[in-house]
């Protein structure tokens, strides 16, 4: 398979970037999208050029590091998938690809396709935890959790903090990310106690980090690689007393 790639190159956050066009040939269909970029980078090294920078680590859809907008879709147009889980066989019919970084004010571009998502860590630091003293905890089975709540909490807890929901949102809102953590902890008795305080702090932090607010476009749940649904947002709104 042969591809024409238009890739966003940007030296740093102070300088604006541009698309640069590259050609890459003889790509096997079992090659992953990121492996295709690896091969392109090998070509660039051979031509004495600086490599294209993009974030990745696990390459199996769980660490949340990878983050590319491909032909307009964060993580590509395949449902419930991260960029690192895309394979070139998924692109049989699109031989021209536009690859960009997440675009949001609160995720400034660091270089090329890499953005700074520290704002997500800051939101968790503002209250995304149970305030238990580390080192002392009661016997685990002293606290019963009904299976349904535990399963639902797990579903919300699978958020990988990738930021695709922000990248796709016309308001660059982080509401889905915030709501997922609030819902996860509120569904469990150990997290229930602080739920209002936590929700208020995290929400405020989201706003002060410059993320927009939610106006129900619901694009976020369509691109979320972990299938986090907007019902998490409904739940958060209930906790915040907004319904």
């Amino acid at each position: 398979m042969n591809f024409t790639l238009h890739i966003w190159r940007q030296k740093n956050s102070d300088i604006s970037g541009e698309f640069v066009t590259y050609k890459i040939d003889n790509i096997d269909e079992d090659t992953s999208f990121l492996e295709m970029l690896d091969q392109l980078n090998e070509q660039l090294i051979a031509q004495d050029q600086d490599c294209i920078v993009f974030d990745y680590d696990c390459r199996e859809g769980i660490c949340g590091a990878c983050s590319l907008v491909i032909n307009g879709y964060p993580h590509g147009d395949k449902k419930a998938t991260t960029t690192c889980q895309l394979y070139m066989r998924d692109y049989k019919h699109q031989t021209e690809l536009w690859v960009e970084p997440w675009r949001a004010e609160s995720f400034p571009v660091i270089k090329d396709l890499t953005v700074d998502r520290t704002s997500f860590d800051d939101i968790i630091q503002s209250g995304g935890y149970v305030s238990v003293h580390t080192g002392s905890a009661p016997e685990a089975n002293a606290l019963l959790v009904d299976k349904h709540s535990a399963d639902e909490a797990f579903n919300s807890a699978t958020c990988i903090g990738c930021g695709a929901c922000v990248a796709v949102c016309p308001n660059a809102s982080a509401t889905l990310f915030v709501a997922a953590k609030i819902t996860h902890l509120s569904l469990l008795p150990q997290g229930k106690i602080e739920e209002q305080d936590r929700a208020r702090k995290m929400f405020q932090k989201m706003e002060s980090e410059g993320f927009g607010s939610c106006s129900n476009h619901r694009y976020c749940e369509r691109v979320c690689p972990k299938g986090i649904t907007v019902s998490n947002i409904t739940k958060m709104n209930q906790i915040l007393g907004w319904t």
Partner: protein
Amino acid sequence: MSNLYANEPTGPLESRWEKHLFNLSLIAPQNRKKHKVIVVGTGLAGASLCATLGEAGYQVSSFCFQDSPRRAHSIAAQGGINATKNYQNDGDSVWRLFYDTIKGGDFRARESNVYRLAELSGNIIDQAVAQGVPFAREYSGYLANRSFGGTQVSRTFYARGQTGQQLLLGAYQAHSRQLENDNVTHQSRSEMLEIIMVDDKARGVVVRDLVTGEISAHTADCVILCTGGYSNAFYLSTNAKGCNTSATWRAYKQGAYFANPSFTQIHPTCVPPTGENQSKLTLMSESLRNDGRIWAPKNIEDCEKNPADIKEEDRDYFLERMYPAFANLVPRDVASRAVKHICDQGHGVGSKIHGQRLGVYLDFSAIIEKLGLDAVAEKYGNLFDMYSSITGEDPYQTPMKIYPAPHYTMGGLWVDYNLMTSVEGLFAGGEANFSDHGANRLGASALMQGLADGYFILPKTVANYLSRNPLAEVDDNHPQVVQSLKAVRDRIQQLMHAPQPKHSPEYFHQKLGKILWEACGMSREADRLNQAIGEIAELEAHFWQNIKVTGVDNDLNQTLERAGRVADFIELGKLMCQDALMREESCGAHARVEYLSEGGEAKRDDDDFSFVGAWEYKPEQPMLHKEQLNYEFIELTVRNYK
């Protein structure tokens, strides 16, 4: 060669940790703020340690190379975490987990440490539940368990197929809470490249800011490395791409002994490699072996066929045949070797690479028939989805194909009972140390070890060290600080400006991976190891002559990051082969073909090799130190899973 002692307490096994705790010095709460501690790595071990030290009131600085601590490689652990709660009332106990771990490690781990690990395991679950880790539950609301990899009791706690993710997020959140409380400071996108040694003690680190390329020194009273394992030495492994040995290797070069580097675990159930440009291999959780049956075609002619067309009587369920008692649940090393054996004999399936088919079937048809599609999807849905997105095949319809891949490293920095390395003031936790798994790790016990180290052991032993070693502050202009900074800068310049830049870091990494996989992978042999040591020495020279890094060093430059890591992997690779060559026996994952039984089982030599091999760096040849393993409480037996 010299003997090495681990500072273990004596007396009955059950009371050693308690007694030791009593003897460890404490630091009064109001004095803790005066002590500065550096933690490198914020995976399970590092994040849990930072949270605990921060909670206690120490000044902690942590570093990781990812863009957030939440992305450490621990996030990828799938199957679960062991703990001896005995909730299932199936005869589990601290003693049984201790015994299983020692036996699973083929009698090459330290009794005192392993017993302590088993003792602490239950408390980890308490801690995680209190943090809101959503473990699987029964309808009654109690925690659920499953049996996992080579054990006959159900002691594994899990959160669907994402246990590592949920445990790491729990620790990350606890770490975040301390960051909010200002007890801990953290720097992401930072790579540790040197240990600063002052008066023979570890007093700080040199770090490269991966965004700006800035090199900075950070000093403290002690340094703890929780920087994970080195499976990526093999190039292709189940580890995240960034996993590296650089931190532990720098420590080795500064005098910390590296123990059992050749003890590396090859995991039996991974998606087979498909081509030359592959960047990593993906693990399919071991839990799949609970319900999936492994087989290969009996007749070589059938290997090309669609598995659906191979008759039941023509299928060889070889693990069930070879190991009737444990069948598909034999430990990882045993299963991996059996799969390799079957493929080497030409019974492999899947596409041919270098003329060989590397794969066997892992078949779920029986369990789907028994429990129904929904029940199987509930248990393994995410794993099946992952498999089908990688391979384009549907495991609900057609059996998975699997093949072994490098996965975990039992070897690592040598540590004593306090988890301190042979360098004073330098500690190591999690996969970075060599401690508890001997020559082979049991499933679901790495998460347990990382968290036991971070939540419960290191906070106590580090406090003891701080209290017993009053230290003057190290000035930023101290000659050792200046020299360490210079060493790091020089090395970067060497990487940036090789005499004849020609090949990318990937080029060298792939070459190293191939040498190691063939010589120091699932089976090892003296001649081949000797040859590999020569090849790696050549590769090393070739690397420094021809490494090509484009771009500049004062910038985000992933090529430079990779080059530095590959350089360290090359040196480590050589030590792995030397260690494998030195150990003239087979044990656990270390299979020397000269020392295997007819049936391919490891033949240990307890008289001559019942020791931990700890290597000290010397410019010419590394020097071996032996820590003799004395089994006071259990009897050494031949592992037998038949």
